[in-house]
Every structure is written in C-alpha cells, then in structure tokens.
C-alpha cells in the first residue's frame, strides 16, 4: 500500500505529460485572431476595432455597407424611404434572434432608445434623431430633427438587440428600464448575428460559435468556432502564427514583425479607404496660426519616406499616397491619377518667406502618442524635414490619456500632434465633421482648432444636401478649402494590414471587389473560409 502511494504522483505526472502530447484535435474550423483589449460586448458602448468585430458578427443592423461599392444595402431592412425628416424602413419578416425570438420593429425601437439613453459608444452618431417608432411589426419610422444625409450610413453602427431577452435580464437601476441590461450584456449577447457568444473574458478572450439558424445562412467553409484574443504581444503573436497556434494578427504589429511573418509563409490582409494618418497643426498658436507657415511645413514633409516607414513588402504598406484631405475611395476625394502629395522644398521655402514669423524664434512642440511607437519615427522624420526650413522642434512623448486632456484647450495643445482617424461609418461626415467643424474643436480629432466659416458651411451642406452628387460636390469643395488652409498635413491614406496564416482565406480583405468601406467589416467571419 505504501509503495502504491509513493508511486502515485509519478504515475499522475507521467499520465499527464503523456496526455499533453496526445492533444485532441481542434475542430476543423477554429479561427483564432487577436486585437487590443478590451472587447466590449455591449452594443450601447461598443466603439473600438475589437468591439466592431464583435458587433458585426454577433449582431445585425438595418443596413450594411455594399461590398465593393460605396453606399449601403438593405440587411435587416428590405427597403427604406426618406420624406423630409422622416425615414421609414420596411423590415424582413424571416429573421430570428439567437434566442429564437422573432425580430420585429419593437426591437429596433428598443435598440435605438437604449443607445440614446446610455449615451456612450456610438450614440453621438444619432444626435439628430429625435425618436424611433414602430409603425407595425415590420415597419419602423425614424424622425430626425433636421435633414441628415449620413443617417443611413450611421445605421451600420446601430446593432439590433433582442428586446424580450434583454428585458428578462434587467439589473439594478432606476426607472422602468433599470440598468437597460448593461450588467448582463457586458458578458452575454442578445443578437441575431451569424455567430453567438460562448464565453467572454474582456481581458483575454471571447469565444464564439456559428449560429446555424442565421437568416442568411453560414457557409460550411466558414469557421465553426472563433477565438478573439486580446492584448497579445507582437513577439508572442509572431511565434504563435508560425507554430500554427494563431490565424490572423491584429493591425497593430510593427511592420518588421509583419515582414518576418510573411517570410514565414503568412499572407497579408488589407482594408483601405476609411481613414488616414493626420499630422495636426495647432492653428491658434504662433507660428502655426499663419497659414503660410503651415503650408511651408506641409510642403516640406517627406510623404514618400513616411509611407516607406510603414512598408511591409514591396507591394504592401500601412499607407498609400494621399491626394488631399479626403482618403481616396471616399466621397469628395481626389482621384489618385490626378497626382499625389509630394515633398516640394522650393514651394515650402516660398511659403515660409511669406510667413509673418521667423522660424528660428520658435520651438515647435512635436508630440507623439506613447501607445503608438510608430509615431516616434514620424516625429523624427518631421524633426529632420522641418529643420531644413529653420524650425526648431522638441519631440514630446504623450500618453493617450494625457493627450486627450491637453487638446481640450488651444494653449495646452502641442503645435504638432499625430493621430490616425477613421470614418466610423465610412461616410466622410464622420471623418471630417469632428475634425474641422468649429463647434467640435478641442477633441483628439480636432487639435487644429480650425475656425473657418467656409469649411463649417460646406460641412453642414454635406450633411443636408439632397442628392449624392450634391454631397460629393460639397466634400470636394471642403477638400480644396482644407488643402488651401493646411490645418493638417495629410501624411498618408490609411491601409489597415493584418497578417494571416495559410489556414484562412478572407475574401473581403483580399479582393477589392468584395471589400467593404467600413473599418472592421472585412472580418465578418461568415464570409471567411477555413482550409484544412
């Protein structure tokens, strides 16, 4: 007996180690990808890229961006009509939530009311919407306080919740709706999407499995299970992809790591046309309150080298050549064949000669966001570029939290800041209005503090114009005006790049004809194919 007991730990250890080497095979279609923490599951709070992935796959929206083309297509809605400030949607009658409850207009109204009541995440997109009403079970009507052309695009950011299910899980709170189900929805889903939540750990991983009852169907080759991991280190991700433990990386890896992974056999996924890299000039502080000084800097900036910094392979970079203030592919953008922005030192010196300030008298504070190390390289590039004009610069590393505080006042805002900005709905309004309308100055998107009546009027026109052609004309005019005022140096059009293992194919990020003009929509799991 004694002998048996003394042998037991050894036996257990050996059994365990043996078992380790005989792992059960993963289900054929398990997709593993990663993003930065934290994954927010509540549709009323979702905001970041990781949140978008969850929303696009677990929930549905009334409309969705059209694949390979601008504009939106019906999704949960079958059609819509716009009469003045009223927008009416006819809804599908064959959709069921993952709970089995039928989708109706009441769910749309509830989802909208909840978004407005919480006032977080993307609620700001619906500030012009006064109310939503259910006309009948399959018709819903939105009343806007004023004409707002980007409204249809905004609906791509209104995930529709299963009202009956949420009402069963209201937590503590005041009023009829108590906490609006916030506590429960932070770990559970109430959607109709192609994937349902199996488990959710906001710091480490969200596990999803396919919803076989999805109203559009989930193809057999799509992943059976998805593991969205959060906050992995670059070195870890590289090792995991190479050893077959991971499939798609986040977009935040340094170009060198992506390059190494391509060398190990990974392929690159791309998503473009929704935003850019912007170098923001504080127009309220000398010497950059003089437009000629700003134009001098814009012409002295080395666009080619900036893009080379993001180069991954000879064909793929994290940025593409800018043509103006609006990224190519978006309403109002200048076509690429019309010429791209390039460095022009003669023009820079010419503008500088017209500037009222002597550059040697000023030291420009040039900030970079501490959480984005790539920006330090751009800061060094600018320091070198601008020194050729005689500007002194001081490079300052600013944590994001501090940056958002500093830009709240023009006097504390750095002379030069760097940010990546994306059009939240794919519409230029969500890119340009928060950056340049004078009513919204002083946020991380608008450290320029631009105060220009013409820009304001054109941006308002872009919101209210009746036809797409009128909107395009308005944004084209905004583009020209911004290039003349140079509140920003338009570094490059953003090209979101991720590395993927050969196990997975993502057509929406490999074929421009199938791409969506909405950040994150390309990673719709049901459109992917897992290879054995």
């Amino acid at each position, binding site marked *: 007996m004694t002998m048996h007991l003394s042998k037991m730990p050894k036996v*257990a250890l050996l*059994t*365990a*180690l*043996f*078992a*380790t080497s*005989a*792992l*059960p*095979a*993963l*289900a054929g279609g*398990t997709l*593993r990808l990663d993003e930065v*923490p*934290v994954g*927010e599951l*509540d549709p009323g*709070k979702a*905001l970041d890229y990781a949140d978008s992935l969850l929303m696009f796959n677990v929930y549905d929206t009334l409309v969705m961006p059209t694949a390979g083309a601008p504009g939106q297509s019906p999704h949960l809605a079958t059609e819509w009509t716009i009469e003045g400030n009223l927008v009416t949607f006819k809804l599908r009658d064959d959709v069921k939530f993952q709970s089995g409850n039928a989708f109706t207009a009441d769910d749309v109204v509830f989802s909208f009311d909840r978004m407005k009541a919480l*006032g*977080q*995440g*993307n*609620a*700001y997109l619906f500030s012009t919407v006064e109310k939503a009403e259910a006309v009948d079970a399959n018709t819903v009507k939105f009343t806007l306080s004023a004409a707002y052309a980007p409204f249809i695009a905004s609906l791509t950011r209104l995930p529709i919740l299963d009202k009956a299910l949420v009402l069963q899980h209201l937590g503590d709170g005041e009023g009829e709706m108590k906490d609006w189900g*916030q*506590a429960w929805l*932070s*770990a559970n889903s109430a959607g109709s999407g192609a994937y349902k939540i199996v488990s959710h*750990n*906001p*710091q*480490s*991983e969200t596990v999803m499995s396919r919803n076989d009852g999805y109203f559009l169907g989930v193809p057999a080759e799509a992943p059976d299970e998805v*593991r969205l*991991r959060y*906050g*992995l*280190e670059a*070195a*870890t991700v590289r*090792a*995991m992809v*190479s*050893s077959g*433990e*991971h499939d798609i990386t986040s977009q935040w890896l340094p170009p060198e790591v992506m390059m190494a992974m391509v060398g190990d056999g990974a392929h690159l996924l791309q998503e473009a046309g929704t935003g850019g890299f912007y170098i923001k000039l504080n127009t309220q502080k000398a010497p950059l309150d003089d437009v000629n000084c700003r134009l001098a800097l814009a012409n002295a900036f080395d666009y080619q080298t900036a893009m080379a910094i993001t180069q991954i392979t000879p064909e793929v970079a994290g940025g593409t050549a800018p043509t103006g203030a609006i990224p190519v592919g978006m309403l109002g953008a200048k076509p690429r064949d019309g010429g791209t922005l390039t460095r022009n030192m003669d023009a820079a010196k010419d503008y500088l000669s017209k500037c009222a300030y002597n550059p040697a008298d000023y030291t420009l504070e040039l900030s970079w966001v501490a959480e984005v190390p790539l920006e330090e390289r751009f800061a060094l590039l600018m320091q070198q570029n601008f020194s050729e004009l005689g500007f002194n610069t001081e490079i300052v590393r600013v*944590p994001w*939290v*501090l940056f*958002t*505080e500093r830009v709240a006042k023009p006097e504390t805002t750095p002379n030069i800041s760097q940010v990546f900005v994306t059009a939240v709905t794919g519409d230029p309004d969500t890119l340009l209005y*928060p950056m340049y309308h004078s009513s919204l100055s002083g*946020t*991380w*998107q608008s450290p320029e503090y631009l105060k220009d009546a013409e820009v304001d009027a054109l941006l308002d026109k872009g919101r209210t114009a009746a036809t797409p052609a009128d909107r395009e004309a308005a944004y084209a005019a905004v583009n020209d005006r911004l290039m003349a005022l140079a509140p920003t140096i338009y570094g490059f059009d953003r090209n979101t790049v991720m590395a993927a293992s050969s196990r997975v194919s993502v057509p929406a990020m490999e074929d421009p004809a199938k791409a969506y003009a909405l950040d994150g929509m390309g990673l719709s799991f049901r459109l992917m194919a897992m290879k054995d």
Partner: protein
Amino acid sequence: MGFLRIFLRRLGTALLVLFGVSLLIFVIARVIPGDPARVALGPNATAEQVSALREMLRLDDPVPLQYLHYMGRLFQGDLGISLYTNRPVTTDIAEFLPATLELILLAGVMMVAIGLPLGILAARYRGRWPDHLVRIAALLGVSAPSFVWAVVLMLIFGFWLQWLPIQSRLHDSFTIAPVTGFMLIDTLIAGNLAAFGNAISHLILPAFALALSGIGQAARLTRANMIETYDKPYIEMARAYGFPEGRIARRYAFKPSLIPSLTIIGLDFAAMLGSAFLVEQVFGWPGLSRYGVQVILRKDLNAIVGTVLIIAALFLLMNILVDLLTGLLNPRIRHAQGDKA
C-alpha cells in the same frame, strides 16, 4: 500560544498598513493625469455625458468624502464597477487572481525546488566546476529581467522546438468549467487528466521565466550561507565524528542556512504578484498583474484601488507566513518575536 500571539500582532500591523495603502493609492489614483469618465466614455462622448458620469462616480466630491464613501462600500465587500471591463471589480479580481496565484505558486515552488538544491550543490563542491556552473547560471538568472527570459524561453521551447505551448492557460480544444479558477484544480475536479497535463504544460514556461531570478537569488544566498555554516566548529566536529557528507549538508549545514534564503524567497514570492505583469503579457496570461497595468493605463479608479489593495494584502500575508516559518525554524527568533510582540 506564542505563534498565535505573533500571528495576531502581525495581523494587526498588516491591517494598519493596508489602511495606509488604501489611503495612499486612493489619492494617487486621483492625481495621475486623465479624466476617468472621459476615458471610459470614449473620445466622442459629449461634455454633458462626461459630466453625468463624473457625477454618478462622485468624482466631483471632495477626495476625503469620496474616500469615506469608498471605504463604506468596501466594508460591504463592494469594490465598485470597473470602467475597463464594465464588470464589478470583485468579479474581475475573482477571475484574474487565481491565474496569477497559480503562476506564482508554481514559480515559488521552482524557486525552492531548484534554487535551494543548486545552492547546496555549489556550497558542497565549493571552488569546483559544479560551483562555477551554478554561480554562472545564478548570475544569469539574476541579471536578466524576467520578460527577457520569457521571450527567450518562448522562442526556444515554443517557437523553435515547439515542445511547449506559447499562450493562454489551456489548449483551445479543452472546455473546463471554472470552479476555483485554478486551472490545475479545476481540471482535476472535472476528472480530465489530459487537460490537467495540458494546463501544466502551459504553466511551465511562464512560471520558469518568472522564477529564474528568484532561483538565482536563492541559489547564491543558500551557497553563501552554507559556506559560512561549513566553517563553523560544529560542522568540523561532525566531520571528525565521521558523519557522511550528505548528512552533514542536509541536517547540520542546510537548516541554519535556510532562514535568510527563506526570507528572500518569501519577499521575492510576494513581489512576483506585481512583477508578473511582463511575463503575463508575453504569454497572454489572463492574470491580475496584467489587469492591474491595464486599469492604470485607463485610469480605472475602482479597479486600481481594488487591485492594489488585494496585492498589498497578499504581500502582507506572505510576510506574516515568512515570519512564522522563520520562527518555526529557529526558536531563538520565535522567542525574540514573542518578546517584542
């Protein structure tokens, strides 16, 4: 009785220290830059929304009033809601703490099980090649930070040799219902030996990376203390009696040499609660240290205070345990502690 008195005295002191820590971290969390409401609501929230959340969180109240309110809730076991995960801080801690504890417990076992024998070996073969080898290895372990070892070990055993897994606590193919939060225990409760073995394989690299510095410390300290003890007259007498070298080392030289090593190991073990962050980050380990750093970056006040309090409490608990253990090993220390107490 003496032990109980020492324990109660130490506990009383620890509670006072905890109170001080709570006060300090509460104030520090409020003076670091950034508006927690703004960070939580996102960059597009309006000033009114930010103001409403500040009011809800009582951030506009004077700090002493906020502290009293916080302590009132703390005594009811409520650490507030985390703005980072949108869950109660107690839920987050209950989920993340076992992962970190499991990691540092194994690291602690490695420190003792590897560091002490290496120290004994080096002392016993003083000046010969085993001693040189141990000293070089110990120096390497101590001189490089744990995250460097984490990356090196990951590259060698996870990437090139592919012997051990790189990330997470368990292979994706296993589904184990959390009962205690300790994966080794939960897999055993589930009766799944394969999952148990897999959980061990996931623990080895991060725990070893975390333990390496402590192993080096323990080995160096044990060696130095044992060498000092070997020079004592009673060891010479034991040799003169013809006792075997192994017995002399184990029974007469090791025990007195253990006390300083134990103190250092205890402190190292407690310090790992905080320093595990980088190792957790490299291995994607969903632990409390990683959570602690994330909440500081997001200025999540409730979570910062809650996490620091828990880590401080564990640190103090470890100190008490070390005090009791050293007292147990050496009656003179026990009596001195009892007298002071």
